[in-house]
């Protein structure tokens, strides 16, 4: 692990109980929502522990040298969940915490979807769904050509993997046996229009990834210890890419938003609503 910024009461991330740290990161997400008065709430909240464990315990990155050649690459392919990524990047010191207050504002570097030219630590501009895994394939091939041991992690949404391009990329990653590539699916079971089982059922999801040449693990995406166990064992098999299906809850941490498709995205968020979110995260 590289140097990280103190996050809660002057303690480093590893000193803070994981549950408390997750709440702190969720409060940073609310800070962004407050700044922009809008955002993909449910989609960001479900991602917190996944990104928390990756940045705290797994990824080799340098906030003071974001383009460090040997780094691991994380691509948030479900770009609409960017508030969770921004929270981690702010917490780690890639960007000042105050940047969150400008979310979606005219001159901010933090848009409603992340852009790599603007935000240190953002590896690729995402938002249009189904692009990230292909970037990951290219980056993993580059690392292989250079015999560089960078690991490439691509975080996707469940609605996102409706896209055919994801399965083109999966087939390609399987063909090249890219063991340095990991696909993570934030499987919160809800896409914009409703429950995934009703809109475009993904099951049997593990079998699909397996059939495309991935070694597959499934994990509770909010269980920090379990996530650590899985992520620290990557690659699951040394001769193929890994897929980690993280079972999550959309809107996790906000009891009134959990598992409610209407909390996918909100705009014109009132100060009262923000106060309720902070209260839920005390």
């Amino acid at each position: 692990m590289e140097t990280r910024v103190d996050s809660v009461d002057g303690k480093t991330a590893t000193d803070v109980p994981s549950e408390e740290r997750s709440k702190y990161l969720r409060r940073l997400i609310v800070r962004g929502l407050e700044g922009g008065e809008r955002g993909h709430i449910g989609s960001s909240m479900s991602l917190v522990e996944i990104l928390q464990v990756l940045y705290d315990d797994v990824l080799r990155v340098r906030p003071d040298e974001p383009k460090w050649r040997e780094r691991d690459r994380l691509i948030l392919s479900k770009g609409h969940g960017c508030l969770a990524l921004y929270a981690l990047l702010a917490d780690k010191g890639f960007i000042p915490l105050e940047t969150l207050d400008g979310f979606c504002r005219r001159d901010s570097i933090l848009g409603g979807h992340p852009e790599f030219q603007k935000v240190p630590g953002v590896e690729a501009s995402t938002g249009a769904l189904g692009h990230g895994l292909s970037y990951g394939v290219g980056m993993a091939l580059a690392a292989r050509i250079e015999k560089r041991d960078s690991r490439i992690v691509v975080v996707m949404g469940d609605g996102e993997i409706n896209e055919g391009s994801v399965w083109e990329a999966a087939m390609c990653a399987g063909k090249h046996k890219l063991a340095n590539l990991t696909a993570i699916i934030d499987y919160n079971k809800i896409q914009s229009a409703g429950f995934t089982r009703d809109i475009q059922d993904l099951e049997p999801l593990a079998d699909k990834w397996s059939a495309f040449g991935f070694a597959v693990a499934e994990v509770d995406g909010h269980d920090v210890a379990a996530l650590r166990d899985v992520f620290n064992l990557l690659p699951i098999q040394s001769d193929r890419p890994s897929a980690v299906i993280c079972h999550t809850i959309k809107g996790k941490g906000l009891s009134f938003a959990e598992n409610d498709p209407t909390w996918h995205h909100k705009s014109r968020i009132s100060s009262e609503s923000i106060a309720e979110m902070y209260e839920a995260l005390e």
Partner: protein
Amino acid sequence: MRRTCIDKVHSLAKRDERVIFIGSDLSPGLLDDMKNEMPERHFMEGVQEANVIGMAAGLAMEGYVPYVNTIATFITRRCYEQVAVDLCLHDLPVRLIGNGGGAVYAPLGPTHLAIEDIAIMRALPNMTVMAVCDAEEMARFMDCSLDWPKPMYIRLAKGGDQIVSRSELGFSIGKAIPIREARSTAPVAFMSTGVMTTNCLAAADLLEKQGIDASVLHVHTIKPLDEDAVLQSAQGARLIVTVEEGIAIGGFGSAVTDLLTEKRVQPLPQIVRLAMPDAFPEKYGVQNDHFEICGLLPEQIAATVAEAVGASDLAS
């Protein structure tokens, strides 16, 4: 032209380790020499254009210069969002080599005709759009392509195309070539791209026999457009004629007229735009059949111009 282009990818790869070749589902044995020599930089990925573009983007993000090759219509239409977002938004030096631009694949029907490739590629911010006129010019262009910092679409012609380019005129991306100079102060000013330059040169010869003087500006780089060359060519022309193998909407002629109106050129010469109509072609046959259908053969171009000049003279 295609063979020259693809072979050049190999020779560029020999001299620069950043060069990668990615094909979709191309001819068996294509670039096997390169594959044997540098297997880690030769990829044949199958029929998955969306992934191939994203994969090329990922490699380019790491500093590589991928040359991606498949049929023109599939490398433009099929994966348009990937080209827009992965390549143009990220502003990455990926080269898209499109086989069979325009009416080359006429016998295969409208699914394989890339008649709007110029228009849709030109519409994308950061994209460079190239249509050279013959194999020799392709060789000169490919040598320049390596260090061009932008995404680039390279339209290939049929192959075996008549050589009309001349090395002494040089080659620079973004710099149009006055390939035929006018002999008078108020000529017909042809502006053309791709193999239509060949037809314009032949049309200019035909017009000369009728006493009509014509210049030809060969615009191998449609975007960024060589504004100075276009404006200079337009200056004082009795008639501007844009000629392209593709639809008029948004195409090369559109780029020229956009510029002339944007710069408020006064007096604005009469303009004739020769292009393909706003329709999916209904006929098969060969490329030349479609040129004939669309009035793009040299003698048809000459006749259209002679008529326009005659009408213009009568009006004045």
